[in-house]
């Protein structure tokens, strides 16, 4: 199981925002206005939590909770 609070903590640290702001319902595009930072965030989370996502997996992602769900679904078998 992916540690959801660890992922949220990591998101807060990459985005340099208060961890309290990173709730499941938070809309990613509102947290990150710069799409480059969003790309970097997604890469950072995959490296940290041993997951592999592709564009298709991100299509339905709107919130922090959606992103965590995709990370959960696409973890490496060994992780």
């Amino acid at each position, binding site marked *: 199981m992916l540690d959801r609070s660890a992922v949220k903590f990591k998101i807060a640290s990459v985005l340099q925002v208060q961890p309290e702001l990173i709730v499941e319902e938070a809309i990613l595009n509102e947290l990150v206005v710069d799409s*480059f930072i*969003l*790309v970097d965030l*997604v*890469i*950072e989370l995959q490296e940290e939590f041993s997951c592999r996502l592709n*564009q298709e997996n*991100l299509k339905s992602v709107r919130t922090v909770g959606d992103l965590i769900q995709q990370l959960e679904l696409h973890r490496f078998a060994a992780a």
Partner: protein
Amino acid sequence: MTTKLNENELWLLSFYRTSEISGALFFGRLCKTLKSSAVQHDMSKHFSDEAHHAWLWTDCIAKLKAQPLKLADSYQDQYISAAGLPANIMEILAITHVFEKRVIRQYALHSRVPDLQPEIKETLSAIMQDERWHLEWVKNALQSMENEFGKENIEQALQRFLQADEEVYAKTMKEHEERVHGLGILAGR
């Protein structure tokens, strides 16, 4: 101080400068995030080249006695909104490959404009040397990822980004038609 650039020229050089800065910031950020690897190594050089290109345009504009315009959106921002977010390193390199190709084509087109100021010509030719290497390392890196990501997936990603590239380029050209035609740069594919 009398500038040697007309309004359209200053806009275009500022556009190039903004785009080089965005590229540098994007790759710089990724270099910090990626684990140590051959991709991280080459991307670090790529990052430093793009930062240097931003300086070359800044300096070129200064030599032509003007000041860079502050432009809002970079070309890369539009790319991501048209193509969707690249989600892994292969997709990032695929979008980079398509983008670098566009940059080379645009710079080559610009360098053929008759009676181009020598400062612009020199800047374009200095940058183009690096841009060729950018295309090459990205192409090699993508090839080396075929086992991990699948050749077909790489080709599909390139295709998707190519389509977005054509859309964004056509849109940008249309939006700035007057400026670009005023400079004698014809949209090429």
